[in-house]
């Protein structure tokens, strides 16, 4: 049996999406030309927009720029304010959080190399920032607030509406990295009150290499990719049309399956979580009411995360220790440390993330295998050794 529980990293494509994805490669004509092929392509593009706009609650006058990923969108937003700073906006300060993805942290680090300043808000034991702290962090020269919707690692959902109200009150543009939002909660960017919102199709059973950057009407914008008049001049490069069309379909399906996510999938998640907590010396993190419905973060005392992944993998179970890139960077532990866990335990964290394709059978299989895996690895573990150095 193969059980894929790393859906916060990336998801398999829905077969319905895949069909459209492959079929629409036929629409290869340039969308900007008058000939029939181009007109067909343009029409398909407009149909995709007609799904994307209501799909995230955007207004007609807003922009949705088709990008290659959340990472691209995040960089575009941060660099819009780097540009303004370089041109004398006088706004050198960015507020963000410690639980952002590298695609926010890295461009923020870059902003610093150009003389900007960044405040990283800490999160509490539920992985959430405190809006009051956020408000206190605001300065005269704050250019941007950027807070992710939810963490792929802790699953913690941030109080985005409260944050957007504060941002609005102080008249500061607010970006929300929404990579973990679509398919897990109903997204309405206008309701949320964000100025920017980024997402990637591959996080919700769409294709890789395509994402969206929502830009509220009138929000500052500077191209990351300068070029021709594609995307209304807001992003150069030929449009990845079949990707865009498939993303629209994936969004539609994600929204259609939201109920299922909050009932069936959340229940499976709960079942898994309870089974884990039956095992001695385990712990789960982040209060469910603040957590993505598909996510469990658990620690298994004495078992280093990567070794756990190994044994899970041997059993055909795929989970994660931290962010997508953690396996090379060993940063998984930061997740639990940020949730207030002791360093010794922090390295034993595992993230299980389900999807609408996860079945009860699969979860039962994992529940069946876990105790044995834990036992084997604890037998190896120093933590459980009886004799220690004197």
């Amino acid at each position, binding site marked *: 049996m193969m059980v894929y529980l790393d859906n916060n990293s990336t998801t398999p494509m829905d077969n319905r999406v895949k069909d459209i994805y492959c079929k629409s490669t036929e629409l290869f004509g340039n969308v900007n030309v*008058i000939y029939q092929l181009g*007109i067909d392509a*343009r*029409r398909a593009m407009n149909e995709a927009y007609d799904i994307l706009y209501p799909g995230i609650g955007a207004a007609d006058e807003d922009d949705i720029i088709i990008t290659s990923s959340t990472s691209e969108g995040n960089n575009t937003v941060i660099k819009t304010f780097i540009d303004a700073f370089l041109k004398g906006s006088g706004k050198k300060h960015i507020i963000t959080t410690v639980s952002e993805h590298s695609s926010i942290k890295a461009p923020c680090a870059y902003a610093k190399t150009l003389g900007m300043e960044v405040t990283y808000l800490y999160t509490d034991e539920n992985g959430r920032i405190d809006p009051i702290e956020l408000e206190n962090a605001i300065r005269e020269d704050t250019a941007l607030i950027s807070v992710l919707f939810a963490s792929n690692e802790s699953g913690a959902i941030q109080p985005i509406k409260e944050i957007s109200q504060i941002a609005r009150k102080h008249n500061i543009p607010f970006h929300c990295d929404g990579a973990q939002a679509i398919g897990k909660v109903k997204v309405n960017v206008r309701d949320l009150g964000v100025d920017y919102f980024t997402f990637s199709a591959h996080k919700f059973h769409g294709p890789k290499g395509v994402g969206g950057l929502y830009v509220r009407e009138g929000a500052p914008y500077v191209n990351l990719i300068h070029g021709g008049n594609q995307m209304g001049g807001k992003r150069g490069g030929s449009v990845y049309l079949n990707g865009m069309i498939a993303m629209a379909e994936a969004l539609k399906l994600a929204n259609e399956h939201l109920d299922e996510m909050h009932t069936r999938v959340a229940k499976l998640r709960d079942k898994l979580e309870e089974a884990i907590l039956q095992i001695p010396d385990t712990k789960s993190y982040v209060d469910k009411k603040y957590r993505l419905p598909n996510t469990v973060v658990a620690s298994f005392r004495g078992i280093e995360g990567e070794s756990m992944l190994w044994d899970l993998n041997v059993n055909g179970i795929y989970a994660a220790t931290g962010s997508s890139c953690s396996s090379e960077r060993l940063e998984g532990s930061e997740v639990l440390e940020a949730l207030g866990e002791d360093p010794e335990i922090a390295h034993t964290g595992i993230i299980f993330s389900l999807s609408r394709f996860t079945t009860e059978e699969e979860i039962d299989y994992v529940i069946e295998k876990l105790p044995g895996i834990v036992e084997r690895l604890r037998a190896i573990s120093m933590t459980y050794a009886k004799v220690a150095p004197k």
Partner: protein
Amino acid sequence: QYSNKVIDRMNNPKYLGEFTEEDAKKRGLKLVVADFGSEACGDAVRLYWLVDPKTDKIVDARFKSFGCGTAIASSDMMTELTIGKTVDEAMKITNLDVEKALRDDPNTPAFPPQKMHCSVMAYDVIIEAAAKYKGKNADELRDNEIVCECARVTRKEIEDIIR
């Protein structure tokens, strides 16, 4: 993206052609020939009118064009719209009238917004022709109608900006 009327008129313009002085003389009418635009700029149109000097009525009209499909279809429609009108009445025709006349249904634009400029020439050439007929300068005859509906831009505004 293009209405059937645009497509028809591009594929089979009805008022394509020209009149000569002889044509005018034979019919006892006055020939007016006016150009707007230039081939060097990439868009141009030429309008031919046969006007009854007694009534100022445009009895017949033809056009020639150097422009895209939209420009050709717009010129054809514009030419048709001027026929049977007096020169003064014809001057009231705008590119928006031309665009509306090219719609298949009243609520769907006849061509994409970025092609709107291609129909503007159709208005301008009427003014040129009217000026020729009246022996006036075309600039005196232009007024402030809206030439770009999407942006609500008037001709005068455009001219002010270009100046």
